[in-house]
């Protein structure tokens, strides 16, 4: 059913694959970044609201 609607767009099959890959790699990258976040920097960031 789903496919039926999209069959009329040329090269449509690449879109969902591309979207999934973008989505996947963005969050893998984000996860990697988050877990390798420098402790000092993190502490600086999280204390920003407390400095006045």
């Amino acid at each position, binding site marked *: 059913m*789903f496919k039926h609607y999209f069959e009329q767009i040329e090269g449509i099959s690449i879109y969902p694959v591309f*979207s999934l890959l973008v989505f996947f790699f963005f969050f893998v990258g984000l996860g990697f970044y988050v877990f*390798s976040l*420098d402790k000092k920097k993190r*502490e600086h960031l*999280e204390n*920003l609201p407390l400095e006045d």
Partner: protein
Amino acid sequence: MQNSTQQSSVGVLEQFEYDNKIVKAFLIASVVYGVIGMLVGLTLAIQLFLPEANFENPHTTFGRLRPLHTNAVIFAFVGNAMFAGIYHSSPRLLKTAIFSKTLSWIHFWGWQLIILAAAITLPLGLSTSKEYAELEWPIDIAIAVIWVIFAINFFATVARRRERHMYVAIWFYIGTIVTVALLHIVNSLALPVTLTKSYSMYAGVQDALVQWWYGHNAVAFFLTTPYLGLMYYYLPKAANRPVFSYKLSIIHFWSLIFIYIWAGPHHLLYTSLPDWAQSLGTVFSVMLIAPSWGGMLNGLLTLRGAWDKVREDNVLKFFVVAVTAYGMATFEGPMLSLKNVSAIAHYTDWIIAHVHIGALGWNGFMIFGILYYLVPRMWKTEIYSKSLVSFHFWIGTLGIIFYALPLYWASLTQSLMWKEFTADGFLAYPNFLETVTKIVPLYMMRAVGGTMYLTGVFIMIYNLVKTAAQGTFVSTEYSQAPALQRNVNIIGGGWHTLLERKPFIFTGLAIVAVAIGGIVEFVPTALIKSNVPTIASVKPYTPLELTGRDIYIREGCVGCHSQMIRPFRDETERYGEYSKAGEFVYDRPFLWGSKRTGPDLHRVGGKYPDSWHFNHMLDPTSMSPGSIMPSYPWLIDDNTDYSDLPKKIKVMRQLGVPYEEGFENEAIADAEKQAAQIAKSLGKDKIKTSKDKEIIALIAYLQRLGTDIKQK
């Protein structure tokens, strides 16, 4: 980071100021409009068991006041408090003054004028009828202009910051600013007929999809993301400890904005929206529970090891209930997005209860917490009475419970009555009204809950005024920080560090993240014909029916009556054939509705004689004893205004409705001819009226509803 700190530390300290005046102005506006919005809400709650509480005045009937209530609460109460929080927290997080005081005040007064325009136009019946986007096009343009001014002021402040990295609250503000602009512009696209009337660029199914993409994300990006930003600032501040996990907050932000934007179609389950779009809405709604609860837990766990403070600190009490209500509403949301749950809950008071857990609990209690935090600090004093704060907390919390529980009960009772069949296979409650009168006592209890909540607000106002009176307002605070070194070469830190330092690339990525969902859902629905199969017998409205439809829109009938029969046995049994996508191709705007306080009207055409409608609009209880529908005597007294009719036909043709060229010149004559027939049919039932009355046009529209497919 190491390098940048060293570089910064050699910089010269610069002095700058924090402007408290603009924060004060937005806070006062929020409280004033909060009271008005809630008073209107209470009036509506009372009208549901006492229809006479509309004072028999067209401007204060339920249909016209409902959008005033929702707009006042969302855009005036929650909106003004959001701006106050952003103007207070951003300069402190970015270590700089707000870019331009002039722009701040243009933003403030512009926004208040927009609210004033809404407060005047909505009771006058000038409405597009699209939920939370009811304001007509000139006001929509004003909203866009003021929003852009706010954006310029905000981004210029970000650009002039003295803190290299943007704290997570700032990201939530950026997400809010860009997404609200996108949502507002796309959903408001319309072709004007006059200064006070326009027709949507989209029709039927497409209009529904765009509207609920907007409606859902107005909740996401006006009521949620800015308040999460405020939570990430004020909760740590009030608790005097950093947020539980900064790492979690990064994941929270990106996953929330990525997923939220897709979830809109969950408002349209089992409707004529294509199945694939409904499924997308459900899947993403269920996924939403992860980032939502991630954020909620991040907020609550900030208090780990400090829960004893919550007992003492009234600000924290409000924040804890707010975040808990957020957790409840964001658990309930995904559950309501499951098709089998939606089948029961949609069109009932469950949705009203759900949104009030969000509005009263999450937004309201966040605002109260922020007020109790800011006012003593900005007036350099202590709170006037701690015990009154505590009393506000308890009466407010109990008010939310007394508000929501009766509505959950009402919802389940009514929904199960709608769906019940007798052993012989007939509807157990064929008369819709029976299912309404059953829950009227629960409506009364809900009004009690609302009164309790509002009482708390009045107590808060008294307490805050007393607090301000005993202190001295500090209009400007001074701070100092070293200037940011330009072009500092930072080694390491990764790509996200770069993003936090480059707000404009960050903003671009956020726009991409929120745009994808909308585009994927909307483009196929708009471009591919098979998504909305046309039906040959469906024809455009006649000029009189179109006029009647605009009266239906003006009176806000859509607030209580749906026009969307779902494919369930009980609904086809009660209302007739289920609604098809192709039946709405000329509906600008769509009028599917979201709540059935009265029955669905999609197949009401031909169900009753014209005289029934006439008597029913004059006094609903004459036809349906016990009805809670208000009466509409002015429709019987007032003459129909045809002056814009030719222009309306022309605009509709420009939008693609197949009215023949030149038909606009015959439109009035055509309408009068049809009106004469209806007046004659009324005359047969001994009702004397002129063909020029508004009721005639409304009857024409109602009698047309859903009849096209019967002609096959």
